[in-house]
């Protein structure tokens, strides 16, 4: 038996992140009494350190390690970098929220770090087992985070709901994995693609496998008809946690879609494409129409998120490299915009008032014109109206489906975009045209939040004016 020591270099960021997270987990119990924010700062520093590690070893080549179960490529690096950037924002906002609502604890950040580790593993997974491992690391961290506020009934309920449905989704995914493994005899993605292309695998088993995999993915992404958990979980969770689970995991979720559909099963495109078309149509439709009925902003953003997933899937179902690039761009922008949107709710929430109902935003322009403008930018960016970056995200995926020959789908998509513009406009209307219920000026709960939210929103505008660089990043990596 000869045992070859694998090359650890490609997985260095993950290993450093694991080491740091474990260290902080232990250290937190010692220092949290004396230095309240030590865990927070250590967490942020860890993110920066890992970010620099990735940047320092950035490579455009594909490097495999651990018996081809782990892959490092520019796709992975770029998604990981954006995960880190988004997470920096999430933790910045979360600390203030947790303090304000009196359940600040180091565990939140430690769990967050482990969640990010899970995302990293998902992004770099090159076989079923590693992918599943990453998914579970991430999900378990999130179940705990949602229920962190033990005395809140809605949070615990949301946590339970997410856990049960998440487990169901994982079951579907695993079932699909096992079928595909049975048909192809391999769990490694590139090999799987070869076997499928060679035509040696049993088509029926493969088709069943694909269906279950797609269902599992749709569950995780929150696409219709597997979306029911999203509004409840988004609404029930503390906003800081909603901010977390509504943004960063979407990037990892997209990576999962990319690895499975593009790298492992390009040969089965006919099977998954038609499924995704249906899912995408339903998601965009439900996202546009159901959001109209919401009076809670978090719920509204959950439905709008369902619509965004539908849009993102349009890039995926184009089934081309450019299509996946457009989808990747979409999901990155969606995550950043989500930070701005949920971040605004966090920034304005006070103890006793979550500030998550649309009526809370009434007359915000009279109470704080600057933050109202920032929220306006965020909402219009989500609606896909130029000159904000959300417009470019939408235009690129629409361009890809037109190229793939689905012009009718593009027409349908823009109609749903018009419908969904209505509920974004309604929030803008509340902020600008309605009289405030309480006309006292309002400030973000801390200056740091004010800066954070403003910076994110301004980034949405600046990227919208000069989108070239970030578009190129997404297109070069696939």
């Amino acid at each position: 038996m000869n045992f070859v020591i694998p090359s650890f270099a490609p997985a260095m960021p993950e290993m450093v992140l694991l080491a740091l997270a474990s260290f902080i987990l232990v250290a937190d119990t010692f220092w949290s009494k004396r230095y309240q924010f030590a865990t927070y700062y250590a967490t942020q520093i860890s993110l920066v350190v890992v970010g620099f590690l990735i940047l320092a070893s950035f490579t455009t080549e594909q490097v495999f390690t651990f018996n081809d179960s782990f892959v490092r490529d520019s796709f992975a690096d770029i998604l990981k970098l954006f995960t880190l950037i988004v997470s920096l924002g999430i933790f910045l906002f979360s600390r203030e929220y947790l303090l304000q609502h009196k359940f600040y604890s180091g565990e939140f950040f430690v769990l967050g770090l482990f969640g990010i580790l899970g995302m990293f593993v998902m992004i770099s997974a090159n076989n079923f087992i590693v992918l599943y491992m990453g998914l579970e690391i991430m999900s378990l961290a999130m179940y705990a985070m949602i229920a962190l506020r033990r005395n809140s009934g809605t949070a615990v309920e949301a946590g339970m709901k997410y856990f049960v449905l998440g487990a169901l989704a994982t079951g579907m995914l695993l079932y699909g994995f096992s079928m595909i493994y049975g048909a192809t005899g391999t769990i490694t993605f590139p090999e799987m693609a070869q076997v499928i292309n060679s035509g040696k695998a049993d088509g029926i088993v493969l088709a069943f496998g694909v269906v279950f995999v797609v269902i599992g993915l749709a569950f995780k992404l929150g696409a219709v008809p597997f979306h029911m958990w999203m509004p409840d979980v988004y609404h029930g969770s503390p906003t800081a946690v909603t901010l977390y689970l509504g943004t960063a995991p979407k990037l990892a979720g997209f990576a999962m879609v990319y690895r499975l559909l593009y790298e492992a099963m390009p040969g089965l495109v006919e099977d998954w494409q038609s499924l995704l078309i249906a899912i995408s149509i339903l998601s965009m439709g439900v996202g546009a129409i159901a959001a109209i009925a919401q009076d809670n902003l978090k719920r509204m953003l959950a439905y709008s998120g369902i619509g965004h997933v539908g849009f993102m899937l349009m890039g995926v179902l184009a089934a081309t490299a450019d299509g996946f690039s457009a989808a990747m761009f979409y999901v990155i922008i969606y995550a950043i915009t989500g930070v701005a949107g949920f971040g605004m709710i966090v920034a304005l929430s006070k103890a006793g008032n979550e500030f998550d109902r649309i009526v809370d935003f009434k007359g915000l322009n009279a109470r704080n014109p600057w933050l109202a403008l920032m929220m306006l930018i965020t909402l219009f960016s989500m609606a896909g109206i130029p000159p904000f970056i959300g417009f470019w995200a939408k235009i690129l995926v629409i361009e890809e489906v037109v190229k793939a020959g689905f012009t009718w789908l593009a027409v349908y998509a823009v109609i749903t975009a018009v419908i969904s513009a209505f509920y974004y406009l309604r929030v803008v209307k509340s902020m600008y045209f309605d009289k405030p219920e309480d006309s006292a000026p309002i400030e973000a709960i801390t200056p740091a939040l004010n800066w954070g939210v403003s910076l994110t929103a301004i980034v949405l505008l600046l990227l919208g004016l000069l989108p070239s660089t970030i578009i190129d990043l997404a297109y070069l990596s696939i």
Partner: protein
Amino acid sequence: MLTSFPILSTLIWLPIIGGLLVLFAGRNNDTVAKWLSLGTALATFILSIPLWTGFDTTTASMQFVEQVPWIPTFGVQYYLGVDGLSMPLVLLTTFTQVLVVASAWEVIKDRVEQYMGAFLIMGGIMVGVFAALDSILFYVFWETLLIPMYIVIGKWGGPRRVYATIKFFLYTFFGSVFMLVAFLYMFYQSGSFSILDFQTMPLGMIAQILIFLAFLIAFAVKIPMFPVHTWLPDAHVEAPTAGSVVLAAIMLKMGGYGFVRFSLPITPDASMSLDWLVILLSLIAIVYIGVVALVQSDMKKLVAYSSISHMGFVTLGMFVLYDILEKTGSIQGAQLGMEGAMVQMISHGFISGAMFLAIGVLYDRMHTREISAYSGVVNKMPWFVMFAVLFAMANVGLPGTSGFVGEFMVIMSSFKANIWFGTLAALTLIIGAAYTLWMVKRVFFGPVTNENVEGLQDLNKREFAIMATLAVAVVALGIYPNPLMEVMHTSVENLLVQATTSKL
């Protein structure tokens, strides 16, 4: 020297940056906000004059061109330029902007800096719409414009402003998304987003028809044409005065501009086979909407309907060319209709702007736009009524005012196309006179029956200056329209060639 100076970019970005400055600098100081806005608007207008003086009327190609890659991966460019079709509209925009700022001087008291800032930003964006030669750049400007307008109507508008502004936004947004899909389709076919490349690319008949319909929805909503015009009366009535002026004077022209820049040159064969649709809708607008205007009791609504009716002339003048070609075998007569439509757009910009400003003058004093609330205004405001009657006459199309020139040209050429088109179009001379003069009679003349009217003050200096400027423009263009026609002539000829050359 002028060729190297990025004059179009300046006209776009100067007001936008100025508007942002106003937003911040004028936050707690209305005086600063007002003067800064006026300064920016005036500077923009003065800087736009070289467009006119440096314009080469002998060529139909784009002038003052600026071309820089914007998103190289997708071939999206920051590509600006004007020809004889767009240059007058750019000037109209910068000109109107000054009046708009001046018109709000004492009237707006709530958040002056946001109001002024929004209008300046809008001004820059509108120049962008007319100057963009890259379709995506065009779309970005086209859509971005909705945001400040949405805020302006919703925040400073009348009692039903929220309804009106959401309707306005969704209508125009709905119209334009199809245009976006058409752009993407053509990019996929031609590999370029440049409008000039779209104009020369070959397109099959089915593709052309679908693209034509996509454009038609976008531009018909904007201009607006029957039956998608219903947002306009609501938006006009609820918008503050300056909002109505910008809507009527400039934003409606974007629809007309879209037809000549996109529909006719890009889809000539579809335009030819579907011209009956546009002509039919235009004639309905001219006659039916004219009659609707007759029964309005709200002055702004009346002028709004009259705008729709006048825009019917624009679309009629643009699309009669195929019938003329078929009938006479030459495009000579079509030239008249097309130029008439373009002149009508500029002239309507002045006249409708002036009418809305005049109504604004009355509204500021009486806070009502109901015709029945007025009577005998002439006894108290003779100067004002002098101007207002002049504008009303121009709206009717009295010879010697700018309103006459365009209408006359369009009616002439539609007679060449089909006697019925001509007859129906000419009906407007009667209907237009009826609704306008009847309003004039009820509002301005007659005895003073109302004590509010009794207390009216005549125009102050600021209002007088605004009115006089517009009056000069209306009369000058009516008596001597030649400079404007000269500017357009070559471009219109080129457009007619493009519109009659098959792309199949």
